[in-house]
């Protein structure tokens, strides 16, 4: 115990120095060559200042976790057999996860933490409104590489099981990431393996080697906490060029995934540290810091009489379960029926409803030509070409992962799963509906035209949808006479894209037809939006206007203000751009030409 106490004191001292040594946000953003293969307007004009803002916010939250770390009791120790970290091991693990999540040193230039793309006030999704409108994916450490999809919310990601194929149901369940590629096979926790992706994704944080995480952790001010929680052996014989290698973005070493030259024993130690990194982040995600199960709807479930929904929210809930059929995939843990006029006298089936089936579906979103990845087909200053397929890239989601296609991971169960790829082309993970409406307190809605300042989010895997109204309207009318055989940016004159015109799906195969012509009225659409807003965590019935969601107070940017004529229906229309001619740039052969081929050709 004395040893632990000394270690914690040393750690505290080192942490103070560490925090003082955090480089000022933005101080080195322009010191390196920038990569800008994009047409005008893909990168938002305020990108650099917004990056600086988010970095400052990240550092603020890191400081808060650092303070929690310092406040940890010095008597933490292992007790019992098997040894258990007591008395507050949960806090230790949660705080460690927080430190890891908000530590900018976990990137080549010490500039990008995991949380840069996942901030609390956006339910741990994308924090930059202009990015949500323009480039969809977030800029990585190496400016301005960017990835291919929206930053997925962390909330409740820990509830997804290890990716598995249920042969009776004939369906895939689980995994993390939109395409399920973080299977959870090794760590038995998909979100732990999800956390292992971005640090070495060349388009995100971008370390060239997973050993760089162990290297930077070995120098971290909170290293003693990591050692305490995991009993980790940092005694690794690091090569003299380790920092130089780790300060070079992934992609600069060609196909070499281990440019940090380690002995086999040391490589194993570094890999174990990387695994524990993922596991600590998984614990953070399951903690109340991220997934607290305290939305207005949770209070309603606890006692509908004491904590009722408003009339519109309740109408929305009934539509969510009934005519809208939303809970066929976004399961609410209740048993319901379309039959009107009856009363529920049963018990709640699940008091922690997750609002997901943990499965996959192709909802038929149009190709979004704003996704940055399409334009990254030229080498960057490090000689890395993010997307050699350029405009021929298509997002087949789970199908692409099962084929171990580009922009994904290798499929670890190919002998069994490869043949199933055509049956899941176009499918993306069914995310929880929880916290879909969570925004910073000063911008209390996602919806323009409500008379309130709003926070511009982006929805679905490709960010095509810009408000919850549009989201519900899409489910409601995708297959009606609003459907046109055009691509985004080419809706016929007299129609309004996303209002009275839905362009064709990017992937028509395996289209989910549960929704698409629901027959909801405009008012009913709004009521479903009102219900979705009850799923926002941090609700305190004693003081409903003040959120208790942790670190939700950290947004320092400006809210969006509704402009004349703008509504939630046409929100974001000014940033629509025309899609290129798909026939001129058909789906790339390394995506659509890999056996087993898609059941019908992808345009």
């Amino acid at each position, binding site marked *: 115990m004395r040893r632990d106490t000394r270690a914690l004191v040393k750690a505290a001292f080192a942490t103070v120095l560490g925090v003082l040594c955090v480089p000022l946000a933005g101080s080195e953003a322009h010191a390196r060559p920038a990569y800008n293969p994009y047409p005008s307007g893909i990168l938002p004009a305020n990108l650099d200042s917004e990056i600086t803002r988010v970095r400052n916010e990240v550092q603020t939250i890191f400081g808060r976790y650092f*303070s929690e770390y310092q406040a940890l009791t010095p008597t933490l120790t292992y007790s019992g057999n098997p040894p258990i970290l007591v008395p507050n091991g949960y806090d230790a693990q949660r705080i460690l996860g927080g430190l890891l999540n908000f530590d900018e040193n976990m990137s080549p230039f010490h500039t990008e933490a995991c949380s840069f793309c996942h901030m609390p006030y956006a339910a741990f999704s994308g924090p930059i409104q202009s990015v949500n409108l323009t480039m969809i994916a977030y800029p990585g450490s190496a400016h301005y590489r960017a990835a291919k999809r929206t930053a997925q919310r962390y909330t409740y990601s820990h509830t997804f099981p290890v990716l598995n194929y249920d042969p009776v149901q004939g369906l895939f369940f689980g995994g993390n990431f939109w395409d399920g590629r973080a299977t959870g096979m090794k760590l038995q926790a998909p979100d732990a393996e999800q956390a292992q992706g971005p640090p070495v994704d060349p388009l995100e944080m971008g370390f060239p080697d997973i050993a760089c995480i162990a290297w930077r952790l070995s120098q971290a001010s909170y290293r003693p906490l990591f050692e305490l929680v995991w009993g980790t052996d940092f005694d690794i014989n690091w090569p003299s060029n380790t920092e130089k290698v780790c300060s070079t973005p992934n992609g600069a070493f060609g196909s070499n995934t281990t440019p940090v030259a380690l002995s086999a024993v040391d490589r194993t130690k570094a890999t174990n540290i990387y695994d524990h990194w993922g596991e600590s982040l998984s614990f953070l995600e399951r903690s109340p810091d991220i997934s607290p199960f305290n939305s207005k709807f949770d209070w309603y479930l606890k006692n509908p009489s004491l904590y*009722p929904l408003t009339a519109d929210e309740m109408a929305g809930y009934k539509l969510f379960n009934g005519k809208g059929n939303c809970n066929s995939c976004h399961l609410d843990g209740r048993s319901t*029926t379309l039959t009107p*006029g009856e*009363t529920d006298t049963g018990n709640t089936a699940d008091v922690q409803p997750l609002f997901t089936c943990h*499965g996959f579906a192709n909802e038929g979103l149009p190709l979004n030509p704003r996704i940055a990845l399409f334009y990254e087909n030229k080498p960057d200053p490090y000689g890395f070409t993010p997307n050699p397929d350029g405009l021929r890239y298509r997002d087949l989601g789970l199908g692409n992962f099962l084929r171990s296609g580009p922009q994904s991971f290798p499929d670890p169960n190919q002998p069994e799963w490869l043949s199933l790829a055509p049956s899941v082309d176009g499918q993306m993970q069914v995310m929880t509906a929880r916290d879909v409406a969570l925004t910073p307190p000063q911008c209390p809605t996602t919806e323009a035209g409500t008379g309130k300042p709003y926070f511009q989010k982006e929805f679905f895997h490709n960010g095509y949808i810009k408000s919850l109204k549009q989201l519900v309207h899409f489910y409601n009318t995708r297959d*009606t006479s609003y459907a046109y055989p055009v691509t985004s940016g080419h809706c016929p004159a007299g129609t309004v894209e996303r209002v009275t015109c839905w362009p064709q799906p990017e992937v028509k195969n395996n289209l989910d037809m549960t929704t698409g012509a629901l027959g909801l009225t405009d008012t009913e659409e709004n009521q479903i939006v009102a219900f979705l807003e009850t799923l926002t965590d941090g609700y305190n019935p*004693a003081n409903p206007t003040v959120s208790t969601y942790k670190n939700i107070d950290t947004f320092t940017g400006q809210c969006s203000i509704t402009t004349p004529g703008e509504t939630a229906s046409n929100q974001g229309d000014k940033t629509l751009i025309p899609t290129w001619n798909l026939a001129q740039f058909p789906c790339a052969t390394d995506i659509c030409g890999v056996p087993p081929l898609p059941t019908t050709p992808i345009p």
Partner: protein
Amino acid sequence: MNGLLVKLAIAAAAGSLLYSSPIGAQMPPPQKENQLPPPAKRAAHVEILNGPALEIAHDGIAIIRWTTNNPGGDDDHYAVAHYGTDPKDLSQTAKNHIRLNRGHADTIFRVLMQGLKPDTTYYYKVTSMGAGGRSDGEESSVNRFTTPAPGQVTSAHPPPE
């Protein structure tokens, strides 16, 4: 240094207090409309209750819709249409995912046919199956629809105004 640590600890403690969520006793009164309907029972025998009928046709596509009682079984189902331009040769097949709602008494099936010719009469019959391949046991008689001229839309389910 000890002083600094103490200050940081106090700051952290104060911060954690800010995040606590005490629940007061003042709560709104109960509302009658805050009640939910009870669960539905699954059908003992699956049958088509409504349709099948054309939902919409335009630009080389057509959607057929029908309603059955809840077939139960796999949460994911397929809506299946066998179709062709000759009522004796329904050799083309369209198949789409439908997610069952466990609580609903009825299930709406919808299937999308693609690559259709304009101004052409198509014949079809529909059925459904679980994602695991087990048939729900029901099958419609042969029906027909005619696709509209290029640029035209035939729709039985107009979107909201």
